[in-house]
């Protein structure tokens, strides 16, 4: 809490009134140089990390990582949630408390047990998830089809 206060005080005035802590809802969220999906990736922020919004532009926000002020960049506003997200308890060696925290949830540990109990095949889902187009591919595809490339840089 104290840490947060220190950060807020250190922010420029323009942000002081607007600064609100939000949480990253993407795993991991790519930080962009400009407010556009196909803009250059300059870093990434882990799921559930707390960030402060310094600037807004249309559906994009310029954020700063609470735990490391040197980490800044653009994210889609939709990548953030105002509800605090618990850290993921993803590892199979998660302790009882972590699992209890995730008690309502569904993570890879829960999935493993579920798969066993219900004889579900998740390898097909892993296959499906290997199919997503990567962004560079999509940018070239969009340009070739005279479509918008999400604001890609030259």
């Amino acid at each position, binding site marked *: 809490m104290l840490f947060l206060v220190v950060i807020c005080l250190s922010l420029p005035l323009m942000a002081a009134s607007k600064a609100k802590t939000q949480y990253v809802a993407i795993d991991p969220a790519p930080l962009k140089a400009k407010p556009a999906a196909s803009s250059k990736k300059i870093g990434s922020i882990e799921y559930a990390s707390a960030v402060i919004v310094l600037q807004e532009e249309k559906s994009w926000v310029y954020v700063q990582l609470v735990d490391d002020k040197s980490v800044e960049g653009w994210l889609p506003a939709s990548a953030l949630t105002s509800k605090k997200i618990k850290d993921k308890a993803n590892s199979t060696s998660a302790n009882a408390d972590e699992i209890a925290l995730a008690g309502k949830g569904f993570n890879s540990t829960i999935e493993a047990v579920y798969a066993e109990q219900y004889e579900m095949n998740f390898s097909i889902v892993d296959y499906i998830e290997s199919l997503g187009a990567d962004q560079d591919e999509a940018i070239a595809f969009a340009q070739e089809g005279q*479509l918008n490339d999400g604001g890609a840089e030259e």
Partner: protein
Amino acid sequence: MKRLHLSIISALFAAILVSGFTSCASIDPFADGGYSSEMAVLGAITSSVQSIEKASETITPEEEYYIGRSVAASIATTYPVDQGSYQMTSYLNKICETLVMNSDKPYLYKGYYVVILDTDEINAMATPGGHIFVSRGLIDCTDSEDALAAVLAHEIAHVQLGHSVQAIKASRVRAAVSDTTKAVAVTGLVAANNRSGGLNLSEKEMEKVMEAVNVFSDASNEVVKTLVNTGFSKEQEFEADKNALYIMQSAGYDPYAMLDMLEQLEESPSNEGWGSTHPSPKDRIKKVNKELSAMAKANPAMKEAKQVRKERFNTEYEDYRIFEID
């Protein structure tokens, strides 16, 4: 127990179908005569009050993703996933990525993925985790890239609007006030876990895991109840259509292709068998037309650009058909 759970899965799958693009789908989730009696049994398998209190909290993006994975796994047990049509699958994924990178929600917890289901049925559906399924039958219904983009944009809109998640939330809250006993389910899970010993956890830890698995099972149950009986509401379908038009527009696709697609669906002979809450293509066409007239007129270069895309669609589609095994 297992048979029962499998029927939960298939019922869950049927529920998700309702959320698809499928006005002309030939699947009728209401046709299963055994369903209500199963539901009576399923009703008894709910989790502890404590779990449900936790469950009534908001679903996190991570949970959305894992629920999506389990829904995807269920779909894959019911329909053959086409793992051969690499080119067409890649083409669909590029269309999808082009749509999402120009949308307000270019990223999900993980991402968006498209896969083809090898079935004649005309169908498309999406999980809350961004797994989008398009059937061969539906691909055969389309005649241009822009029409395919309309199908994908509609599914993307359902995902971005969180429609299936809304159903889970509402149902989980309802579950909290329903009569709950979990004895049967938990006993079964404990026994099975002791047998399997797959996870290196203490008994206490395993109990926690099983509680969570059970809650998930609950949520699935409730999704079944909510979606199979009611489907997505007409409003949600119209909302998905409307959002799809704007997603298409910002990507540079011709939103009017949505109209072509719906007209194709209307003409389809299998356009029947849906619940009263599911809007007909005719109603959707009406709404889409109204929305289109309010949208900015297409760029004059659209016609030419559309032709460029039409040509690459033709090439992709021919290749797809050549390698198709009947």
